[in-house]
């Protein structure tokens, strides 16, 4: 699903240049649930942003679902993001003046779906994350765990190939974290490819494979025995 070869990325701040990714080689198959770990500054978020086409690599190749991601202009990047990817963020990033239903509908709006179809599909995914009854609530009226579940529903709504989650549990207490992870595991069990960036060990062990990043290189990449989040809840 994802093939990354010799990926480099540096940031320039004035005269200083910061080499964040120093040659990443990395492949994800369809249906995998991968966590990317590392301390802050290890480059894990940068990697996820490049995979998410929110940022561009300086060097190296990136193929997503057979499509070479290269020399994107913003318009095409937006189209690919919309088609291939669903994002889940640490800070949820819901639009605060839109109801849960409208938030979930938004990617489909950009896909150009009709209103009725959007609403139907959004309701379907809200049901899936267990928040159908909350569809008319604004984000400010939801708890953190609920917000993240709305965000997951939104990420799923565009029916992406890959779900990218940047510290999805970073702003949640452990009980809610496990609830969210249970949902993520459930979605993965249904066959969706999911990448999670995290620095929490227990969260990482709820995935099937852990990639460890340090100073811009992968130092460890291993399959692990998945801990079912259900056990903790």
């Amino acid at each position, binding site marked *: 699903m994802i093939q990354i070869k010799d990926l480099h990325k540096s940031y320039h701040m004035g005269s200083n240049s910061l080499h964040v990714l120093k040659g990443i080689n990395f492949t994800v198959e369809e249906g995998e649930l991968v966590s990317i770990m590392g301390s802050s500054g290890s480059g894990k978020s940068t990697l996820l*942003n490049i995979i*998410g086409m*929110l*940022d561009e690599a300086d060097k190296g190749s990136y193929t997503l679902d057979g499509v070479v991601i290269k020399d994107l202009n*913003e*318009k095409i990047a*937006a*189209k690919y*993001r*919309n*088609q291939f990817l669903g*994002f889940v*963020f640490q800070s949820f*990033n*819901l*639009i605060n*003046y*839109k109801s849960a239903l409208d938030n979930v509908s*938004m*990617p489909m*709006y*950009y*896909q150009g779906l009709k*209103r009725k179809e959007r609403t139907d599909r959004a309701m379907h995914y809200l049901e899936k994350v267990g928040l159908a009854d909350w569809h008319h609530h604004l984000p400010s009226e939801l708890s953190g765990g609920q917000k993240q579940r709305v965000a997951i529903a*939104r990420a799923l709504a*565009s029916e992406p190939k890959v779900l990218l989650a940047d510290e999805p549990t970073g702003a949640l207490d452990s009980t809610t974290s496990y609830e969210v992870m249970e949902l993520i595991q459930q979605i993965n069990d249904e066959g969706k490819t999911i990448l999670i960036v995290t620095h929490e060990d227990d969260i990482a062990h709820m995935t099937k494979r852990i990639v460890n990043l340090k100073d811009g290189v992968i130092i460890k990449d291993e399959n692990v025995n998945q801990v079912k989040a259900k056990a903790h809840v």
Partner: protein
Amino acid sequence: MFNKERWNEILEALNANKFRTFLTAFGVFWGITILVLLLALTNGLKNGVTADFGDFATNSMFMWTQGTTKPYKGLPKGRYFNYKIDDVEAIKAEVPNLKYVSPRNQLGGFRGNNNAVRGTKTGAFEIYGDYPEFIKQQPMDILQGRFISYSDINAKRKVCVIGVDVIKGLYDKDEDPLGTYIKINGVNFMVVGTFKMANSQGDNEQDANTIYIPFTTFGQAFNRGDRVGWMAITANDEVSITALKQQVFDLMKSRHKVHPDDERAIGHFDLSEQFERISGLFSILTIVGYFVGILVLASGIIGINNIMLIVVKERTKEIGIRRALGATPGMIKGQILQESLILTILSGMMGVSFAALVIWVMNAILDNAGPVENFANPSVGMQVVFVALIILIVSGLLAGLIPASRATKMKPVDALRTE
């Protein structure tokens, strides 16, 4: 671009901060209100001033005689002369492009003595000897009967057409003046018509205080013979009387043995020239109105531009989210532009409506309080509304342009990172 979904998005965004939206809109609202009001007031001033010209055909001049100031062909200077009725025929024959040449004679006038008698009632009126064409130069509403006709002229009938104030002065209420007789300077005239000035203002008292009788009758009854007091000459619409008048003067000078360079022998008043001068003044006033109005509007537009920049800055993260979810820069730009457009047009149209209300109130007050000198019926035409609309659309786009490009300049990843 103009689908329902986009509209909902925009209304949602504008509704998210109602008070600010309102304040922003107010700048444009105020600007367009002032623009429209300025134009309306200019128009009111113009209406008021041009009303002083009355309805007299503006492409006209009046021409009379003054004493000569140069000796010529053995005739001394300081000689007085009169136009004759055959001068009229000569002008008509020799000067092309003239529409009407009306010779006129007058009795009475400013502070005149009583000159009309009916039974026990008397009055001082202005009595004119005129040709039938005169009603085309000076439009008036015939209330009863008719105006002077050519058969009156030819038969030198003693008939008259009287103004409403004459009726007031010489008749009892509910009396029918048609067919009755009025004695003017001792000569009886039958009333064949009554008139009032068409939508006149200010001077209507004087205008309606008038009696018209056939020119030929006037000459005979009041011992003028074939002399002509003065002439009212109107040119065809496509030619200015100002361009033609010299030909008329030259003709008159040669017919009356006046030195060709004697500028003061013939007096005239060029209505067209005066009217052009006033129209020119008001064209400039209108331009000033637009100029000042657009400047005021510009500050409103800058307000919108400013607030849209703030909105874009505030919504940097939201824009980042939208882009992460698949919004193209074009969509984001389109939305910002459309927001600023809607804000501008909506508030602008509200401004136009408000200005219309103010104009309406002004007119209502004017109607109730009676005419004000040099000011009447402030109003703007539909074309002003369209011009305003175009100005609003253009300025709305301008106001949105910078914020829209600002909105998509940041990389989505940086936009997402802002708090």
